[in-house]
């Protein structure tokens, strides 16, 4: 397999995984309907953050603290601190999205031109 096809298949897998996770993320909404909406929102935010983290990881773009933030959000949610959990989960989700975009943008990273001029 070439490098590009490996990346392509990883991306495809990442997309599939996030699709599945995205669907899974919606499930608790239904399951937790009888509970307070805050808790279900917190769980949904955490699931969405986890999906974004896995998507970044699938292209080697996960950041250092994202998984820790998600764990902390889970602890907050378990303690009933839903607003704080949602805020942290949303930050983690943003990290996942930024890490994914970053890895995609760096797929063709190469020697800087001041070392090796590719346009010659």
């Amino acid at each position, binding site marked *: 397999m070439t490098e590009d096809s490996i990346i392509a298949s990883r991306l495809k897998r990442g997309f599939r995984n996030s699709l599945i996770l995205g669907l899974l993320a919606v499930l608790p909404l239904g399951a937790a309907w009888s509970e307070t909406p805050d808790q279900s929102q917190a769980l949904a935010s955490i699931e969405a953050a986890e999906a974004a983290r896995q998507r970044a990881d699938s292209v080697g773009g996960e950041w250092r603290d994202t998984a820790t933030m998600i764990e902390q959000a889970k602890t907050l949610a378990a303690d009933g601190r839903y607003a704080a959990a949602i805020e942290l989960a949303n*930050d983690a989700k*943003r*990290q996942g999205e*930024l890490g994914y*975009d970053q890895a*995609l*943008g760096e797929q063709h990273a190469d020697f*800087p031109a001041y070392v090796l001029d590719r346009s010659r």
Partner: protein
Amino acid sequence: MPSTRFHRLHRLALVLGLSVSITTPLLAAGPPDDLVLDGDPEVGRLVANDRAKGNCVACHIMADAEGPGSLGPVLIAIQTRFPSKRELASQIWDATLKNPEAVMPPFGKHAILTQQEFVDVVEYIWTL
């Protein structure tokens, strides 16, 4: 024939659209237009010197900071070097907007600082 032509155009559009949608996230924007740059310079000084936050001194020589690094330019006479506070904010938000090879971390874009910390740091650096 017209339908084939349609297909051809359609596919070309699809490919071009795809390439645009792939590159669009890379043409990232600076600070949000509605971000009001009215921070507290004294708080900004603390954030700028915090190792886990701004950590400006890791790379820049600046007033009142010990053991500075030398990767970036000396932070002095800032108002003569940036035409506006917003230009300075843009540089701190994402330095690669101006120079794709810039080394400076994108403090705003990557949320290294919260928006409040960001405006405070901008305010402080603007006074240097």
